[in-house]
């Protein structure tokens, strides 16, 4: 019991401290620029690009897709950098040297980013409300659950990328590439059923794809049961990425201890 409470304390304090340290987020300008202006501007760009192709009537399709895509900002950049900066800032050695529960440390890095991702999507939907999003017939509780699951599953991918970042020299290259791959393959801007098979195959293995699909169904008032299978598989995908990331983290720790390369770049 005592061990569990200690792990829980490490989870919460580690989660909070790593979050506030991220990106100098104690400075509001950085948060506003990276977490509000950039994703909203990205949403508007793809909305207008989409509307130039398919007309104003399809605005809802692009707003929902790109609003959900906002979770990727916290999940990809936020989570990855909370993990990778342990190494860059020289704190990884102390973390690895401590007897703290590794799972609590690792999963804690995603916790506040999941909540932050939720906030980002809500802001996206609020802005969307001014430019054509209609939520009058939406299943709002179902939509809230979908957003939560999308944030969790995308943070799972972020944890995996974070683990990779411990061995990569330029993690921003990996982060940026995955962020844009999600933009292309998650269906945020494309009707996946009309896309070539190779695009559909890739999208099946990515988080966000099923959340975006679910959100579009729930916006039209469908019951949660109709998308439960989609959401369950979305959650499972996120969990798989997170576990893969944790296994990689432990492998990295093992190799770094064995070879004395914990701080090597």
């Amino acid at each position, binding site marked *: 019991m005592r061990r569990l409470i200690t792990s829980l304390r490490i989870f919460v304090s580690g989660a909070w401290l790593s979050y506030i340290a991220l990106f*100098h987020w104690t*400075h509001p*300008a*950085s948060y*506003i*620029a*990276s977490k509000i*202006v*950039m994703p909203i*501007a*990205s949403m*508007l*760009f793809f909305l*207008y*690009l*989409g*509307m*130039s*192709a*398919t007309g104003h009537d399809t605005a809802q399709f692009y707003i929902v897709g790109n609003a959900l895509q906002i979770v990727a900002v916290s999940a990809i950049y936020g989570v990855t950098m909370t993990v990778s900066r342990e190494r860059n800032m020289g704190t990884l050695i102390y973390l690895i040297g401590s007897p703290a529960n590794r799972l609590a440390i690792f999963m804690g890095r995603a916790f506040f980013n999941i909540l932050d991702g939720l906030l980002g999507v809500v802001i996206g939907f609020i802005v969307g409300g001014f430019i054509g999003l209609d939520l009058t017939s939406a299943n709002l509780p179902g939509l809230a659950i979908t957003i939560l699951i999308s944030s969790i599953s995308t943070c799972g991918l972020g944890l995996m990328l974070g683990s990779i970042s411990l061995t990569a*020299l*330029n993690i*921003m*290259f990996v982060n*940026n*590439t995955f962020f*844009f*791959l999600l*933009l*292309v393959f998650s269906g945020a*801007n*494309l009707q996946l059923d009309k*896309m070539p098979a190779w*695009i559909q195959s890739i999208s099946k293995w990515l988080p966000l794809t099923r959340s975006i699909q679910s959100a579009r169904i729930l916006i039209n008032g469908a019951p949660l049961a109709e998308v439960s299978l989609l959401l369950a598989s979305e959650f499972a995908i996120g969990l798989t990425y997170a576990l893969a990331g944790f296994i990689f983290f432990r492998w990295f720790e093992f190799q770094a201890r064995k070879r004395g390369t914990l701080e090597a770049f």
Partner: protein
Amino acid sequence: MLSKLRVVWTVFYLYLKQIAIDGFIIFTVIIQPLLVALLAIYMLRDTEGFQAIYVIVGSALTGLWSGTLFFNSFNVQAERWSGCLENIVGSPTHLQTVVLGKALANITISLSSMIFSYPIAAFLFGFKLTIAHPSLFIVSLILTILALMSLGLVIAPIFSLNPGNILWVNAFEFPMYIVGGFLFPVLMLPVWTTPISYILSPYWAARALHATSSGNASLNEVFISWGLIVFLSLIYLYISSWLFRVLLQKSKEKATLGLQ
């Protein structure tokens, strides 16, 4: 004058070698425009009057702008971080001359976005890509370089005047894609955004490049775009000189040249 040109060339050559292997730069000028082109082609290909060259030029412009924004915003800061800023300012060469060399290197590497977007449409989708007016397109491209280089010279001191300014850099990437009319006409946007587009040289560069590559505008319109690119670039260069003076004066007064 010759010694200034020698400095510009040396900075250009050294900086080009340095950034050509940078992962962030490779992403910004190659991977990102490629993915934008891929996405835009799939989004727009079924529209009436679709022209692949429009998407290629538009996607390349996103790479050019992202390159201009990110590289130039860190141009002076990077010297500060590496401890070279004090030495540069202390030398007889003006800081703006050094930054000009870097801006030229940035724009040269950013131009590769135009080359790398091309195979996506040509090989992956099998579109036949033809430039309607090749000679006018080349002039437009040269003027685009002038437009982005002069804007880059404004960006560099702005993001260095105050250490907090650099935090805002991410906020400027997509808004320019929108008001610059890179991949869709600005007529779709609310009317109040039109004056913003008009005072930005990348908007006129996009108009000139699209008009000469797609051939869907009159020669008169192309000339107007060229004229406005030159006019706005001269204004930007004037503003840039003033900003560099303010930056140096402020840094010397407050002794913040080496401040990280």
